[in-house]
């Protein structure tokens, strides 16, 4: 049973990996433009003379960019293609009529999104090195980064299974991902917001990711509740995605 489950997860991942290899350079070019622009515009252009917690703004910004970018990549590389597969191409049915479990399918997609999120994060780390920002990648850094990718890849499956058109998918990004991108501790700390807003932002999934990556990258302690909040989000999104897949079979 477990070996079949792992095999099935890898099958789902394999398909996405085969496609990813074919578009690797296109992926690199198109998906990395936004973080590059943010780093150069805010980190160097605007933040050259800004200091945060005694360090450069660029050092503050880069871990936030890694959190933001891995969120966007993990989500977008799964959500839109899976949504199209369900609604337009009907290729999701190939998986529904095969003997693989819903959980294997969802986890395979989560792994696909995570790998792409991690690859894009490596590029930002390399850019950071070139700009003289040295991140510590040990300790909690990689586990938190992986968990961040897991959370948003699982959310991507939920979105793909619930949103009924391509147009609405981009609205989802606008209403859910874009606000988190700016407000969840990526570009600036949320300390100056009123308490109720600060508290609300602190429980959104990207906030603990930004905070934990920033702390880990600077060899500071990672608060225990940050990865716990992220893990809870992952479990909720993953379970709901499996449930949606089961409901799809019962339409």
């Amino acid at each position: 049973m477990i070996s079949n489950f792992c095999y099935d997860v890898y099958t789902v991942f394999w398909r996405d990996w085969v496609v990813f290899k074919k578009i690797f350079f296109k992926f690199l070019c198109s998906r990395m433009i936004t973080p590059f622009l943010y780093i150069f515009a805010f980190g160097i252009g605007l933040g050259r003379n800004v200091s945060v917690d005694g360090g450069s703004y660029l050092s503050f910004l880069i871990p936030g960019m890694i959190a933001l970018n891995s969120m966007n990549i993990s989500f977008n590389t799964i959500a839109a293609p899976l949504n199209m597969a369900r609604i337009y191409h009907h290729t999701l049915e190939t998986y529904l009529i095969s003997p693989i479990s819903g959980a294997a399918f969802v986890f395979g997609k989560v792994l696909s999104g995570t790998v792409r999120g991690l690859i894009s994060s490596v590029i930002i780390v390399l850019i950071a090195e070139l700009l003289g920002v040295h991140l510590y990648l040990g300790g909690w850094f990689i586990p938190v980064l992986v968990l961040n990718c897991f959370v948003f890849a699982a959310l991507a499956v939920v979105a793909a299974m619930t949103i009924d058109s391509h147009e609405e998918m981009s609205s989802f990004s606008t209403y859910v991902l874009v606000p988190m991108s700016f407000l969840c501790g990526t570009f600036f700390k949320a300390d100056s917001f009123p308490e109720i807003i600060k508290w609300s932002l602190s429980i959104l999934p990207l906030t603990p990711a930004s905070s934990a990556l920033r702390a880990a990258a600077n060899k500071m302690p990672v608060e225990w509740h940050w990865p716990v909040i992220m893990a809870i989000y992952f479990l909720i999104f993953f379970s709901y995605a499996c449930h949606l897949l089961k409901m799809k079979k019962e339409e």
Partner: protein
Amino acid sequence: MIKIENLTKRFGERIAVAGIDLEIKRGEIFGLLGPNGAGKTTTVRILTLLSKKKSGSVKICGYDIEKDSERIKELIGVVPQHMSLDQDLTGRENLVLQARLHHLKNKAAMEQRINEILEFVELTDRADDKSRRYSGGMKRRLMIGMALLHKPKMLFLDEPTVGLDPQVRRKMWDLIRKMNEAGMTVLLTTHYIEEADQLCRRVAIMNRGRIIAVDTPQKLKEKVGRVVVEHMEADGMINNFFDNREQAASYVAGLNSNATVREANLEDVFIELTGRRVND
């Protein structure tokens, strides 16, 4: 092979399948013929575990579709109505994906089986091209190949030749006959009269969610009359049915208008049973 009892399916208030009973025997090509909206695809989607029934019982090879769904997935192959190929993959990669999904884990055995399938569906030369570049007929052949990969006992073809030109359609019929001769039981849905007539050992005529007749094409036609005389009256085209050409000729001799004498077909059966054409 398949036993269906009192199968019902609703979408909200609309009854899509209204208590149908059907039995499909091992080794036959069985056709489900009816117009768009008759409930054919809904029935097939229930049988292929893509949709849940409201009530009734369905057994495939003795297995219940609700209790034994995982076992049934190993026994059936499905070619859905939509072109559902993964168009980012080549033909071969689509087959590898299908093999992996059905747990054909041994690499050498998988490769051998894929090569056999490619030869069977005549796509060996184009196996490594992206499937988005295939013609409609090639895509459909690849989908049939994918459905056959894991050696199912039963094949479901939902409108297998829709959108294909006549020449390609006939090639598809040859492929279906070849599979059946190799022992495959086939259930196909179609709204093409000729397809049901040419391919199927037995046909169920379906209309508005109900099965209105089941028999061999020949016996269904005999129920209305083997020979048809078509002639124009003031009200429009009239069809009269006769058991043989002599009776038809004698009727024609008494007409004042031009008439066409032809063999009865399944559309005539459908019209007589329902009062409407299959393509209405």
